[in-house]
């Protein structure tokens, strides 16, 4: 890293020079610059996705691709500039860290400004740092895995991320090590017309176990920002990775994220993905079940309020015998919001004895709001089972009447039903996050009853 305390704001827009400059600022090795430049070509060559929500509001030339607010990266909150520290204080991050986190990372604009891991975790050989640091300190590991789960040419936004990535988390858990407390990263966008492109890589070696939580927020601006992250998770034999997201971007952010994992023999990968914010959210956490007995569980929750499109779901590919997956998707649309489920389950030939269960339901709270389901199932193996249940509909009038007959007014009754509908999510979150999640849902529900 440059030892300067100066702010850096690269000029808006994207070309090869911006890619080179980012790499230079970070003082990167040649191989990483090559990785970026190749990816930039893929990005240029690829058209915008021809499916899904309208992305024409993204102007690649109006975005800032690298913003450094402070070059200080610290493990002490008090070292951060006052204005930045206050933001995290308000969000309760330092408090959560004290209470129950094993490691914490805070990313501000393009870079991680705070990172700290409890000593007992470090002593176990657990690595949790930002990915820029990992490129400098653990180049061999990064080189081995980066772009292997999500190829730089996977899709236009994965290509973009690969070209201009900055920040994100690098987690390495050695063989047989169970991380005793969750690791958390918090992402913040404070600038208008910002592009945030964190790159996260989680490697759980054989028999390792780790829970990673991420939260995010942004200042609301009238002009669009873009958040295009790539997250790669590798769960080796017998490993367990649980990845939880509480996404609460402001409603001017396009959130186009590629999250994917490999699960080897007997490994278990969980994605718990809650999407409350953003203007357009496209996110389909994926698991490739590569080894026998590997399992996947994906819980995806979305709330689409006025002006929002939540296009969420998941993807699971069963590549080995006796692999299991459950996908649960619950979404809520209100005030004209749109909540789609988009999912893919593929069972490859030879994945005998595999089983996949998909349940997706969408609650539409008013006439203006919509939701579609696009489930895609492909079973190429006779001795494998897939099931799929879908529901799109309004709040059950009988449930509403039942609660109202017990003294709850319409708003309280609807809140109760909605919070019950997504209760599975709440049960999955650490207490502090569950409270925050419920609070965010309630704020969104305010005034929902005309």
């Amino acid at each position, binding site marked *: 890293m440059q030892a300067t305390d100066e702010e850096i704001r690269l000029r808006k827009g994207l070309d090869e020079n911006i890619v080179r400059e980012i790499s230079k600022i970070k003082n990167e090795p040649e191989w990483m610059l090559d990785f970026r430049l190749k990816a930039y070509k893929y990005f240029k060559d690829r058209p915008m996705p021809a499916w899904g929500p309208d992305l024409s509001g993204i102007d690649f030339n109006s975005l800032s691709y690298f913003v450094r607010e402070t070059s200080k990266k610290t493990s002490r909150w008090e070292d951060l500039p006052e204005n930045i520290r206050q933001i995290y204080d308000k969000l309760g991050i330092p408090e959560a860290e004290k209470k129950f986190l094993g490691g914490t990372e805070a990313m501000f604009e393009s870079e991680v400004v705070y990172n700290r891991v409890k000593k007992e975790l470090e002593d176990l050989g657990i690595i949790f740092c930002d990915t820029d640091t990992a490129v400098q300190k653990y180049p061999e590991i990064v080189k081995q895995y980066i772009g292997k789960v999500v190829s730089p040419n996977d899709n236009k936004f994965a290509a973009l991320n690969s070209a201009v990535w900055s920040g994100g988390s690098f987690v390495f858990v050695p063989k047989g090590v169970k991380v005793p407390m969750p690791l958390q990263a918090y992402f913040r966008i404070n600038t208008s017309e910002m592009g945030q492109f964190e790159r996260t890589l989680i490697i759980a070696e054989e028999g390792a176990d780790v829970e990673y939580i991420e939260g995010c927020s942004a200042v609301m601006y009238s002009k669009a920002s873009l958040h295009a992250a790539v997250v790669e998770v590798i769960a080796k034999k017998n490993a367990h990775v649980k990845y939880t997201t509480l996404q609460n971007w402001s409603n001017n952010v396009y959130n186009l994220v590629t999250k994917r994992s490999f699960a080897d023999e007997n490994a278990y990968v969980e994605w718990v993905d809650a999407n409350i914010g953003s203007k357009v959210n496209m996110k389909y956490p994926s698991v490739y079940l590569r080894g026998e007995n590997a399992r996947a569980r994906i819980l995806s929750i979305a709330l689409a309020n006025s002006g929002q499109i939540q296009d969420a779901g998941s993807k699971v590919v069963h590549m080995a015998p006796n692999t299991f997956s459950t996908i649960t998707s619950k979404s809520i649309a209100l005030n004209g919001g749109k909540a789609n489920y988009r999912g893919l389950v593929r069972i490859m030939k030879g994945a005998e004895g595999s089983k996949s269960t998909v349940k997706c339901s969408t609650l539409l709270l008013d006439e203006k709001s919509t939701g579609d389901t696009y489930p895609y199932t492909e079973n190429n193996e006779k001795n494998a089972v897939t099931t799929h249940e879908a529901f799109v509909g309004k709040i059950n009038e009988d449930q509403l009447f039942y609660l109202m007959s017990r003294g709850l007014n319409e708003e*309280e*009754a609807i809140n109760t039903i909605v919070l019950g509908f997504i209760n599975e999510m709440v049960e999955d979150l650490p207490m502090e996050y569950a409270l925050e999640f419920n609070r965010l849902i309630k704020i969104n529900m305010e005034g929902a009853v005309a």
Partner: protein
Amino acid sequence: MAEIEVKDLTAKIGEKEILKGINLRIRTGEIHLLMGPNGSGKSTLANVMMGNPKYSIADGKIVFNGEDITNLPAYERAKRGLFLAFQNPIEIEGVNILHFLRTAYKAEKGEGKNVIEFAENIANELNLPREMLKRQLNVNFSGGERKKLELLQAILLDPKIAIFDEIDSGLDIDTLKTVINLLEKIKERTGILLITHSERTAEEVDSEEVHVILDGKIVEEGGKEIIKKIKEKGYASYR
């Protein structure tokens, strides 16, 4: 002393008239039995009294302690002390029972009571395992368990007027006895409309009056002799 009066009540679902000029008056300390064959309008009357918006009121009114509540939403009726124990209590996924009971109690009565402790004591009395109160509202409950939970709410919320819509169906004989005893106890503070299919229940309850409903109209009212008549001849004699 509380009182509910149903006056010349005519109610429709869509264009279909289901209740056709019902009159009823129930006061604290009284149990009124409402009997009638399937589809005669018993549950509709219960729902309309409680304010189910599925039904529209074409004529008549409902007066609660002198106040016209015909157009009040259900929660306003509940807050005034009206309660309905549903015939088929609905499952509500993800809603923890104890949390729900606390919310309902707070909405109707305000703060004060230790709702959880109180609810657990009632559960004991009803032979409903305490653990069940930690589950989701009615989710995967048997018919009998649902009825017990309705009764538990009736006791907890201590209404002025309570409607029990077939609280006795699907209960085993011992539970039925417990339920009838509890109704007698509730009656001391509450006026009760007890809808039942069972002549046996009707006979065992110390009732003020028996009302027979057929095709949306009250066709006979009187004492316990009516139960005997129904037992012997069914509802055919009213047609």
